[in-house]
């Protein structure tokens, strides 16, 4: 979906790998929108996030797997990246916040919050995989 030979797509890919927060939009069973900023891991093809078992986003996704992800624009609005996708709740015990790629990405932020990947793994036990169906971006010169 992203063509890394294109400078614009390569820049988006770089942002997806380095940015720490992404907005996750879901829809509640009653039809109202829901939004939450989440930590995420982009592997070049899919997004992995970890949820607590009782989070509203998980309840929403059981009902409706359609999501929108959005990178922060840093209050500038001149580099918007939106991704439409489908979420799958995974039952894979090998996917944990202690995965090196995840633990390394968030090492600094976890430390600043007084968290460890091991502690997080006891709470954020539910891996969710989001497969993009469409990238929408503008403002990347």
């Amino acid at each position, binding site marked *: 979906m992203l063509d890394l030979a294109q400078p614009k797509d390569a820049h988006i890919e770089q942002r997806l790998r380095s940015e*720490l*927060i992404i*907005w996750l*939009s*879901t*829809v509640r069973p009653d*039809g*109202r*929108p*829901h*939004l939450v*900023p989440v*930590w995420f891991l982009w592997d070049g093809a899919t997004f992995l996030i970890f949820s607590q078992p009782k989070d509203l986003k998980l309840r929403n996704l059981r009902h*409706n797997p*359609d*999501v*929108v992800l*959005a990178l*922060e*624009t*840093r*209050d*500038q*609005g001149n580099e*918007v990246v*939106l991704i*439409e996708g489908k979420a799958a709740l995974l039952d894979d015990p090998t996917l944990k916040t202690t995965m090196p790629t995840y633990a390394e990405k968030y090492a600094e*932020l976890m430390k600043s*919050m007084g968290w460890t990947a091991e502690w997080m793994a006891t709470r954020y036990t539910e891996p969710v995989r989001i497969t993009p169906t469409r990238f929408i971006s503008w403002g990347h010169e």
Partner: protein
Amino acid sequence: MLDVKNARDAHIDERLRSNTMIWINTVRPDGRPHSAAVWFLWDGSKFFIFSMPNTQKVRNLRQNTNVVLALDDTKNGDDVIQVEGKADLLENNSGVSATLPAFVAKYDRMFKSMGSTPEAMAAEYSQAIRITPTKFLAPVE
């Protein structure tokens, strides 16, 4: 809803007045979520957003008036401010447009840097959306 004598609410009010980008999340008629990053005005009780007349968000709001707004800048997740609300699509003769003095003052610098004017925006972004908050979500970590 916000009590600006309360320090936390005053902080939320200040960020709603000064930040320039907000996400408006709506639900499409087919039930999928939709997100857009937009300019906005918070007057202390309502939000005003200006849209081109037939955008996806306007089509969504004709069918489902529930929205979630979220300030784009989360301070790396430390200062997340979201607002749940109900949207009204205002009539063309409502007198509410991008030429509102408070809106012009807020975006003056951005209009100039884009080589645009409030009058040009008012002509193109002619659909005013008024959002009445029902709930403020701003967890303190």
